[in-house]
C-alpha cells in the first residue's frame, strides 16, 4: 500500500533519475533499476534486464539433450541441484524412463539440502542489504556444512551435474547418511538461534513489517509463485499441487503468512527450512537399497514429437521447462519459465510510492537470481 503521498507536481519539486546498478553492492547480480525519485520517495521504478543474458535457449537448440545437461544448473546457481534434477525429470517423463527408488530418494535429499543452502544464502545477503553483517557470516558457515556434504558425493559445490537421465551418476554411502543426520540435528537447533538473532530484532522488524506489501490481485496479474505467493496467504506449492518424483510420499507442511510484506516472506522461508529438514529426515530413514541409475537408459534421447511442460518447486517459485520436440535428438524449442522473471516484472507495481531504502529491502526480500531472469 502507499506509505506516503507523493506529490507529482513537477513545477513545485525537482524530480530526478537515479540509476541503481548494473554494478551495485547488493549481491543480486547485474541488474539495473532506473528510479524516478522525488527526494527519497520513489515515483516509479523501471527494471532493465539483459546484463546477464547468456543464450541458454539458443544453446538448447544447438545441442542435444545430453549435451545440455550442464546448463540448467547455471540458470539458477543457488538452486543448481533442483534445476538439474528438474531437467532430468522433464526429459524422463517425455521419454518414459523409469527411475529406481534409491535414486529418487537420493534426489530428494540433495534437493532439500540445496533448498536450505539457497535460503541460507538469501538470509545472509538480505540482512547484509539491510545493514547487518553478522548473520551473513553465520549463514555462510552453515551453508559450507551443506556444501561439504554435497561436495563429497557430487564433486561440485555450486553448479551440479549430478543427476542424469535415469537416476544419479554416483552412489551415496553410509558416511553421507551420517553426515546428513548430524547436520539435521545441528540445524534444527541453529534455526532457533537465527530466529532469536533476526526475527526479534527491533531494527529488522521496523524495516520489514509493512514494507513491500503485495496487493492481493498482484498474484493473478503477474503469476507470482513460491514463497512470495505463500506470504500472501495462498497455500500453493508445486510439490503438493502437482507432485513430481516421490514428493507425495513425504509428510510436510506448506507454511503461509497473510500480510504479504517483507517480514512475512522472511517467516515463510525460515519455516520452509524447517520443513525441508523434516523431509530429509524422512528420506534418510526410508532410504532403500538398490540401483542408483536405471539399468537400461536409451543411448539416444529422442522424445516423441509434441510439446511437454514440467515444473518443479525451486527456492524462488515454480520453475517450468517447456520442451517442443520434433522427434530428433535436438530440441526444437526449449523455454525456461523462471520465477524471478515474473517477480521482477511486478516490481514497478510494488515499488511505486515507497522510500529508496525500502526499495532495497523489497528487492532483497523477493529473492531473485539475475541469470535466471536473463537466461
Amino acid at each position, binding site marked *: 500500500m502507499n506509505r506516503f503521498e507523493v506529490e507529482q507536481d513537477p513545477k513545485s519539486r525537482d524530480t530526478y533519475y537515479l540509476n541503481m546498478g548494473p554494478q551495485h553492492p547488493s549481491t543480486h547480480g547485474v541488474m539495473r533499476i532506473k528510479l524516478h525519485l522525488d527526494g527519497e520517495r520513489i515515483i516509479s521504478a523501471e527494471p532493465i534486464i539483459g546484463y546477464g*543474458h547468456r543464450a541458454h535457449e539458443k544453446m538448447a537448440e544447438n545441442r542435444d539433450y545430453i549435451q545440455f545437461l550442464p546448463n540448467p544448473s547455471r540458470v539458477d546457481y543457488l538452486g543448481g541441484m533442483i534445476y538439474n534434477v528438474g531437467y532430468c525429470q522433464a526429459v524422463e517423463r517425455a521419454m518414459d524412463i523409469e527411475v529406481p527408488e534409491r535414486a529418487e530418494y537420493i534426489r530428494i535429499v540433495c534437493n532439500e539440502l540445496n533448498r536450505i543452502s539457497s535460503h541460507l544464502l538469501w538470509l545472509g545477503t538480505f540482512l547484509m542489504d539491510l545493514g547487518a553483517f553478522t548473520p551473513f557470516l553465520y549463514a555462510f558457515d552453515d551453508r559450507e556444512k551443506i556444501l561439504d556434504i554435497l561436495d563429497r558425493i557430487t564433486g561440485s559445490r555450486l553448479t551440479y551435474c549430478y543427476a542424469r537421465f535415469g537416476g544419479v551418476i554416483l552412489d551415496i554411502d553410509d558416511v553421507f547418511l551420517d553426515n546428513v543426520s548430524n547436520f539435521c540435528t545441528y540445524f534444527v537447533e541453529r534455526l532457533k538461534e537465527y530466529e532469536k538473532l533476526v526475527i526479534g530484532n527491533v531494527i529488522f522488524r521496523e524495516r520489514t513489517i509493512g514494507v513491500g506489501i503485495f496487493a492481493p490481485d498482484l*498474484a493473478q496479474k503477474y*503469476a507470482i509463485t513460491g514463497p512470495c505467493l505463500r506470504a500472501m496467504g*495462498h497455500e500453493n506449492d508445486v510439490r503438493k499441487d502437482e507432485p513430481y518424483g516421490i514428493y507425495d510420499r513425504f509428510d510436510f507442511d506448506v507454511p503461509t503468512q497473510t500480510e504479504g510484506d517483507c517480514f512475512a516472506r522472511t517467516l515463510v522461508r525460515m519455516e520452509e527450512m524447517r520443513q525441508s529438514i523434516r523431509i530429509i529426515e524422512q528420506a534418510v530413514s526410508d532410504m532403500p537399497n538398490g540401483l542408483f541409475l536405471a539399468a537400461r537408459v536409451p543411448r539416444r534421447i529422442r522424445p516423441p514429437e*509434441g510439446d*511437454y*511442460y514440467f*515444473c518443479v518447486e525451486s527456492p524462488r517459485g515454480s520453475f517450468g521447462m517447456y520442451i517442443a520436440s520434433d522427434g530428433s535428438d535436438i530440441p526444437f524449442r526449449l523455454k525456461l*519459465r523462471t520465477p524471478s522473471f515474473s517477480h521482477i516484472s511486478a516490481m514497478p*507495481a510494488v515499488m511505486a510510492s515507497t522510500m529508496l531504502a525500502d526499495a532495497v529491502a523489497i528487492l532483497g526480500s523477493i529473492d531473485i537470481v539475475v541469470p535466471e531472469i536473463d537466461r
Partner: protein
Amino acid sequence: MIADKLSSLLRDTTEVQYDARGFHVQYTASADTLPQIADAFLSENFHLEMITCQDRRENDDAFRLIYQFNQYGMPQRHVIHADIAPDATAPSIAATFPAADWYEREIFDMYGVSFDGHPDLKRILMEEDYFGHPLLKDFVDPPNPYRSEDDAS
C-alpha cells in the same frame, strides 16, 4: 466454466494426458481472438504462466505463439497455440494480464514479432540498439571482436 466460454473462440480442443505431457488441455486459436480468450481466463481466476514462440517458418510458414494459463490450488493448465504469418502482428494481452508485458517484449526481441496495443514494445534482453533477432533459426551473429575466432591475435 472455462470450456463453455472458450468454445466459440477456439478452433479445436484436445484433451491431453497430463502425466505424459504436463498440461491438461491444448487448444488452437487464431491470433485475433486472443484478447477475448485472455478476458475469459481472467474472469475464471486463471493466471498467465508464460508466453513463448516457435519459429516454424520452415515447416508451416508461421510463427507459433504459445500461451499457457494455469490456476492456483487445483492446477488446470491450458495451452493455446496461435499461428501467425511471418510478417503479421499479434494483439497484445498486456492490458488484461500485466505479466504478458515482459513476455511479449521478449518475443519481440528474440523473434521480431510485434504486438499491437503493447504499452512499450522495446527490446528487453539485448541492447536497445541491437540489430537482429537471435532466436530465429537462420540467425547468424555478425563477425565482431567479442568472439575468439575473429580476433586475429
